[in-house]
């Protein structure tokens, strides 16, 4: 089933949750809606499910206007972050709920039972059918919720931060497992997440949202390698931002030329977005940007170096091999070998202050509004 949302707008108390958003999910596709909280991703998901009514715009399931049918008849499987299991029902009754609620061609009780057992097997919970939700772990509960949604053979599967309430390890397992289930069942699936790793790993296509608009909709590779906007660049992966000046098709930092294509940006101030791998230490004595090491920390096989560079002492981060000793306050030269330059007019994700210490978690916390620095 193809799902098409066209020109959806939705306002909450004069704040635009969705601003003229259009999105198409092809039949059988697994799409992630990624963005910080308040970006409208959950509202979009709920609108597609029929749990919210848009102020304007239409949702089509194939070529049918979904507004013509009640939520009950839309055939969407919806999974909530906090499972929303029926606490007073055993696992099997939870899963059978949708089948028993059917008015037309309601299956026989024996068939329901078989179907439930099949689903329990699919979500790897066989043997737990007599338990109550309170007797299950978080990961198990979410799997029950998924089995319950799958039981009605939904035309679309919608998941709202399905792994958000689980700890990191369970989250990783379930992610892989969801991918497997998707490959086996082939449901058109749309899920919401604020975890970029989850989106990039799981989805065929990632839709990055911010402030009620879609910033970019592309494959995980494209999202990472060619972010369409500064927001996408800084929301995905780690990044540092330094102001540069564009002139004659080249970017300069403190009048030092940076060897980067700037496309057809107009002359004037611009911003250079860098990932840690876009910066390399100069070891051969060649030209480079001088800087002062502020701090280092070990990340896997590399050493992540935070450095102040340029006259205005902008902080950037880059990776150096772990075997190269680097001390705090050491002077270094670096060369910029990648990154993207965005014009000053383009609205970015305000990371400059954070760039020094922004682990993705920290950045995420800021996006969530936990840190208002």
């Amino acid at each position, binding site marked *: 089933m193809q799902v098409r949302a066209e020109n959806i707008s939705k306002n909450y108390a004069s704040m635009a949750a969705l601003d003229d958003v259009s999105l198409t999910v092809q039949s059988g596709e697994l799409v992630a809606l990624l963005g910080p909280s308040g970006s409208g991703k959950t509202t979009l998901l709920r609108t597609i499910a029929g749990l919210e009514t848009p102020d304007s715009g239409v949702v089509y399931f194939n070529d049918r206007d979904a507004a013509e049918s009640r939520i009950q008849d839309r055939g969407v499987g919806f999974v909530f972050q906090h499972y*929303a299991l029926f606490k007073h029902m055993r696992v099997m009754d939870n899963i059978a709920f949708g089948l028993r609620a059917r008015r037309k061609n309601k299956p026989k009780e024996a068939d329901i039972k078989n179907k439930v057992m099949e689903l329990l097997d699919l979500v790897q919970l066989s043997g737990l059918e007599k338990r109550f939700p309170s007797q299950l772990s978080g990961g198990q509960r979410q799997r029950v919720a998924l089995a319950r949604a799958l039981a009605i053979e939904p035309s679309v599967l919608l998941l709202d931060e399905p792994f958000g309430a689980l700890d990191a390890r369970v989250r990783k397992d379930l992610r892989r497992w969801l991918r497997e289930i998707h490959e086996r069942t082939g449901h058109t699936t749309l899920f919401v997440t604020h975890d970029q790793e989850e989106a990039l790993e799981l989805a065929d296509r990632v839709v990055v949202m911010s402030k009620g608009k879609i910033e970019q909709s592309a494959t995980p590779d494209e999202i990472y390698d060619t972010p369409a906007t500064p927001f996408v660049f800084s929301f995905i992966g780690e990044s540092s931002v330094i102001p540069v000046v564009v002139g004659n098709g080249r970017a300069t930092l403190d009048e030092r030329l940076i060897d980067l294509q700037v496309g057809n940006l107009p002359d004037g101030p611009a911003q250079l977005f860098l990932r840690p791998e876009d910066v390399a230490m100069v070891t051969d004595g060649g030209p480079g940007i001088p800087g002062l090491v502020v701090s280092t920390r070990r990340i896997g096989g590399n050493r992540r170096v935070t450095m102040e560079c340029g006259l205005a002492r902008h902080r950037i981060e880059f990776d150096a091999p772990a075997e190269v000793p680097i001390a705090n306050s050491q002077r270094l030269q670096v060369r910029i070998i990648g990154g993207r330059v965005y014009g000053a007019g383009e609205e970015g994700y305000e990371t400059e202050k954070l760039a020094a210490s922004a682990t993705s978690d920290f950045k995420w916390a800021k996006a969530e509004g936990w840190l208002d620095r």
Partner: protein
Amino acid sequence: MSASAPDGARASRWRRRSVLPGFGLSLGYTIAYLSLVVLIPLAGLGIRSATLGWNEFWAIAFDPRVTSALELSFGAAMVAAIINTIFGVLVAWVLVRYKFPGRRWLDAAVDLPFALPTAVAGIALATLYAPNGPFGIALESLFGVKVGFTSFGVTMALIFVGLPFVVRTVQPVLEEIDRETEEVSATLGAGRWRTVTRVILPGMLPAILTGFALSFARGVGEYGSVIFIASNLPYVSEIAPLLIVIKLEEHNYAGATAIATIMLVISFAMLFVINLLQAWSRKWFGHE
């Protein structure tokens, strides 16, 4: 429990390690307090009525006036509690789920039967529903129903005093109910009726039973609000608590305590059953 610890053998099997110790002290205090305030007076009641001897006790217990008063008290309390349960849940639902002008006023008004002296409530009801009161006249001429001075009137008064018990026990539970479960139920194809009866109500059942029990218990013991509207005709609208008062006024203390003891036993048995039902419903619906 870490019974394997060396000093664990000394700890009783009721005892559990906790960051807030004081099991012995708090249990001791609870028992002493309950004894002083509840158990000893009630035991006194039993002892007092025991001075009667079996024959006299049974004579009082099966006195037709007493049995009809007991029947009325428990019957009317039961009917009132059932009605209160239905409408109390509805009131709680409206108060929790909908925003409308005057909601806070309505919310506060629910507590009035708690706050009013019950005699005031009784007089107000009697004025309205007595055969010559405005509602009394209307009901009798329209439906031929007599409310004042009948068992109807008694039930009416008990509904009035019992309503807040149901509303106030159900309300917080309703507030806790997760909207998402309702939304899931709808996406799974369940209609409104199914969502209410299969998803929402079962979760509320323990609270509803508590409200029912409280409303019932209050109804059995209610006195002030009933006596005015009932006008206390023996065999028709005379409630057991009033009969006790009458016996007391006749200085028939043994007779009064006998009726009281019977009420006590029946009440305790019924509340015990309700508690069992509650425990069962908690278990059945996976609350524990």
